[in-house]
């Protein structure tokens, strides 16, 4: 057992070194802009860049729409499968895993070919349509995570009893989903939302191939043209990811722990 603990420490320290050295190096590099002294010049330049602000806001808005779309698609489906259609669960789970199998670049390639301006559904014919297509693409990327989060949330509540109780009190389907089910799985939905946000905010492939002025292509552009700013941006991106994950952790403390009934 003593030997086991020694090796555990060795593994942990090696792992910690591998993960922390790049972070330290990036912080150090990002502060090297002014000759001879450490400074936050690179951060000032990046944060003051109007293109940074514009692309970042664009991606934030895209992320918000992605989350809304994801919730609209996933919550009713996951609820309905638990309530009425458990037999199609394997199919739906298979579909939600597809975005992990089909690379994002292939999905967006398909969009470009299928929804071009000459197609029956010319998403790419207008700016609004292309923005919508980007949000749709992001929603497919987030689908596995959103579905898993919502399904886990639904597992901890008694869907059937809640639904029957609401029906007895005269609630319609819309009321049941928005005022009974959704509040009960809100924490799970928010976890999925923050994860979606973390995935979408710096996404490069889809935004770049759809020619959208998003944060990911901006990052790539800065990386190709500047020396110190990319390091500052990497740290900013890391902090955003960290923020999203911390919010999920904090939220999970409020989540109900055990199922009332195995469903």
């Amino acid at each position, binding site marked *: 057992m003593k030997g086991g603990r020694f090796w555990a420490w060795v593994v942990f320290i090696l792992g910690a070194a591998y993960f922390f050295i790049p972070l330290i190096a990036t912080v150090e590099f990002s502060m090297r802009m002014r000759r001879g002294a450490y400074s936050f010049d690179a951060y000032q330049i990046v944060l003051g860049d109007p293109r940074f602000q514009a692309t970042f806001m664009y991606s934030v808005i895209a992320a918000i729409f992605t989350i809304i779309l994801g919730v609209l698609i996933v919550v009713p489906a996951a609820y309905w499968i638990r309530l009425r259609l458990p037999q*199609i669960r394997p199919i739906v789970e298979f*579909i939600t895993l597809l975005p992990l199998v089909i690379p994002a670049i*292939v999905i*967006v390639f*398909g969009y470009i070919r299928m929804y071009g301006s000459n197609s029956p559904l010319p998403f790419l014919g207008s700016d609004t349509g292309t923005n919508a297509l980007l949000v749709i693409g992001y929603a497919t990327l987030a689908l596995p995570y959103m579905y898993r989060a919502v399904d886990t949330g639904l597992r901890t509540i008694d869907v059937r009893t809640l639904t029957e109780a609401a029906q007895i009190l005269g609630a319609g389907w819309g009321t049941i989903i928005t005022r009974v089910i959704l509040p009960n799985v809100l924490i799970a939905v928010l976890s999925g939302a923050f994860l979606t946000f973390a995935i979408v905010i710096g996404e490069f492939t889809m935004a770049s191939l759809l020619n959208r002025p998003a944060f990911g292509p901006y990052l790539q552009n800065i990386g190709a043209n500047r020396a110190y700013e990319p390091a500052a941006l990497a740290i900013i991106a890391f902090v955003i990811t960290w923020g999203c*994950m911390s919010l*999920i952790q904090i939220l999970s403390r409020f989540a109900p722990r055990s199922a009332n009934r195995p469903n």
Partner: protein
Amino acid sequence: MTDLSLSNQTMAGKAAPPAEVRSLRLPTQWLGVAPFFIFAIMFLILPTLYLMLGAFQNDAGEFTLENIAALAQPSIVAAYWISIKVSLASALIGAFAGLAIAIAIVRGGLPNWIRSATLTFSGVASNFAGVPLAFAFLATLGRLGLATVILNTVFGLNIYAHGFNILSFWGLTLTYVYFQIPLMVVIITPAIDGLKKEWGEAAATLGATTAQYWRMVVIPVIWPSFLGTVILLFANAFGAIATAYALTGSSLNIVPILLYAQIRGDVLHNAHLGYAIAFGMIVITGLANVFYIWFRTRSERWLK
């Protein structure tokens, strides 16, 4: 408890009054899942099928195998080969390192805060991919990166003189490992948690050595999740483009970068060859998943 839930389920099947079931079955039964299926078909399945069919058509829309055959040209084969190598190497390194870390934090007798800190950090790092990750590694192992400079000035080891390059196979693999290890840790830790203490005690009572316990109990139990995660990591790396693109530009010709260039500017001068490349990517990630399912059913049967 089990009995209760069972009877509840059988009850639930007959819960609604028969008349209502008959008249409303079709619309209400499918209405809730309709948006999901319409979305999945329109924006996930059809676009993919479109490309897959396009891979077997020529410009006139006739069936042909020429596009698939054209994949055999050296530059495309090389792109697939390097993609497979990077994905496999990063998946295997990530999987074994992640497994070691997971075992260390669960079974190694480390303080409790290390476990929770590692899991939190893994959640962050597994999502820290794409372009920013490339920047971090350029700042670390690029020509002017901190690790490069320190190795050179303090240890007198010029890694670039020894043939290392961040814009190479090993550079990209080392970078991918940064999100592969944490992903492995996040997925495999619950499986390690599932190893019951009693099994170890039972094995010890029966006179098993530690090695036998590992070989006959631990490995068979975590094998399916391990293999499944390796395949997930492989697919994860295989489709990734942003990190590689930001890291190497187009100097390292992996498949997603080739496809990216093809979508942007038809560099292969044949639109249907682009479809074929996409088709090849789906075949590879799809095959990986078939292997996963096959292995899992095999090992599950064996576990019984």
